[in-house]
């Protein structure tokens, strides 16, 4: 609230006479804002679920590999996170995307579907962004979870071996409880990073929301509203109100998750 007033006060020409909450009202009533929020929640939810699931099993897999290969595997997995989100987007566009791109060539066509026009089809833009996020973060999360698995006391695995426990039982009774707090931590990290995702979408879609705004993420929306280049509205008060709303909610949510973790007694 204070922030939005500060903005309207400091920029001549945008100083409305309004009640302190009118910027928030305008934000909530903007259909584009709501749309961007829906997109962002789908994006964040999807990328968290896929990344955590994949990383969990990947970390176990790497742990069970020969010791010699573990280091090099982890390092290779980290490669996508070294690249700038911008070049990830370019690479995605050139390598995976397109009728002859890797996704269509090796996945969609062999499964017997028609090639998908990933960037132009409104229903596929968001999955595209999710895949990109998964691709980028899986290595980092895997490294964290791997360290977590290494920290599990070895006698637990010995007991499981003696009892002849199945792989699934091992996952359920040793590996999952042992890395639960790290999964939560990674989830929070991905949540905060996902809400703030900007660079990848900016490069892939050139600062726009894509066809029918199907790929309009929240930060892109705020950028469009606040700075000319998007719609040129230069509406800093609205953008800051939106930011305060979203970031505040995210921070509260993440904080609540942390509290829950304490309750669980970890």
């Amino acid at each position, binding site marked *: 609230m204070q*922030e939005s007033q*500060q*903005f309207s006060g*400091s920029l001549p020409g945008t100083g409305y006479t309004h009640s302190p909450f009118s910027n928030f009202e305008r934000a909530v009533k903007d259909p584009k804002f709501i749309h961007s929020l829906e997109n962002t929640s789908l994006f964040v939810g999807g990328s968290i679920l896929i990344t955590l699931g994949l990383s969990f*099993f*990947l970390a*176990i*897999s*790497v742990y*069970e*590999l020969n010791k010699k290969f573990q*280091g090099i*595997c982890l*390092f*290779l*997995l*980290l*490669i*996508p996170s*070294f*690249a*700038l*989100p*911008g*070049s990830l*987007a*370019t*690479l995605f566009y*050139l*390598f*995976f995307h*397109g009728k*002859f791109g*890797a996704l269509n060539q090796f996945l969609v066509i062999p499964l017997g579907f028609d090639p998908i026009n990933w960037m132009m089809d409104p229903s596929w833009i968001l999955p595209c962004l999710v895949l990109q996020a998964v*691709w980028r973060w*899986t*290595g980092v999360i895997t*490294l*964290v979870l791997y*360290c977590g698995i290494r*920290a599990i006391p070895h006698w637990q695995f010995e007991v499981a071996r003696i009892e002849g426990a199945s*792989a699934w039982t091992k*996952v359920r009774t040793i590996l999952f409880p042992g890395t639960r707090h790290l999964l939560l931590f990674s989830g929070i990290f991905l949540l*905060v990073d996902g*809400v*703030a995702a*900007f*660079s990848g979408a*900016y*490069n892939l879609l*050139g600062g726009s929301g894509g066809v029918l705004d199907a790929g309009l993420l929240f*930060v892109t929306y*705020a950028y469009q509203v606040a700075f000319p280049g998007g719609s040129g509205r230069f509406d*800093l008060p609205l*953008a*800051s109100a939106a930011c305060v709303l979203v*970031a505040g909610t*995210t*921070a509260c949510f993440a*904080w609540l998750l942390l509290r829950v973790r304490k309750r669980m007694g970890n």
Partner: protein
Amino acid sequence: MNRLFSPILTGLVLLITAYPFAWMFLSSFKTNREIYQPGKMLPESFDPFAYKLLFSGELFDFTAVLVRSLLLAGGQAIFACLVTAATGFALAKGRFRGKSLLFWAALLIILYPKQAMSLALFEWMARLEITGNLYGLMLSGVASGLGVIFFTQVFRKVPDELIDLAKVEGQSPFFCFFTLLPLIFPALCTYGILHFFLCWQEHLLPLLTLGTDQLTLPLALAKLGDSSYHTPEAVGLAAGVLAMIPLFLLFGYFFRRVRTALADWVVS
């Protein structure tokens, strides 16, 4: 888990993570026509025309962009290490009012998406008249919540006796802090790399504050991807390859140390 399952899953994911980057490196030597056939791996000839074009300065001064990004990320990492380590030292070993409040505030900063703070930061920087200035931008990222939490945990492990000793010797807390720095050198390295990494990839704030004549790497990449430039695709890929190299070297060199520090941190 199943004997076959682990190698297969790992191999598959490794293929997805590493193969496109090998393709990216090789494609930086290709012509557009070759690049638009993603199934193709090797270029027809290893002609580094894209790299030559980048460094010739025809598009923009790429060397300056590299230097600027290195300066920004490196400088910010060093400053951030010093500032957050000092804060962590105070929070872990000092006794004063509002300590836990400050700790929670640092935690809140981590949970608050940084991009959403960009507008407020931009406003502050405009007021201090340090926009369009690399050093202003460097300053803006120095106070990092992650660093404060990390170093508080690190300094909590440092025995109190050392600080008591310094007090008995009549040293100031500042002196005490600086003499303790070598002791936490691994942690400093780890956090420095992490901060460098994050700053290196920062896109929105440089976009807002720096002028068009002061590009950093993410901005330059976005510009190369812009269709109005009509540059061959290989140039964008070459820039991407060059942007990866510093992180590659840093991580490659410090990987073992980072892993140890991570494993330590996971346990705590």
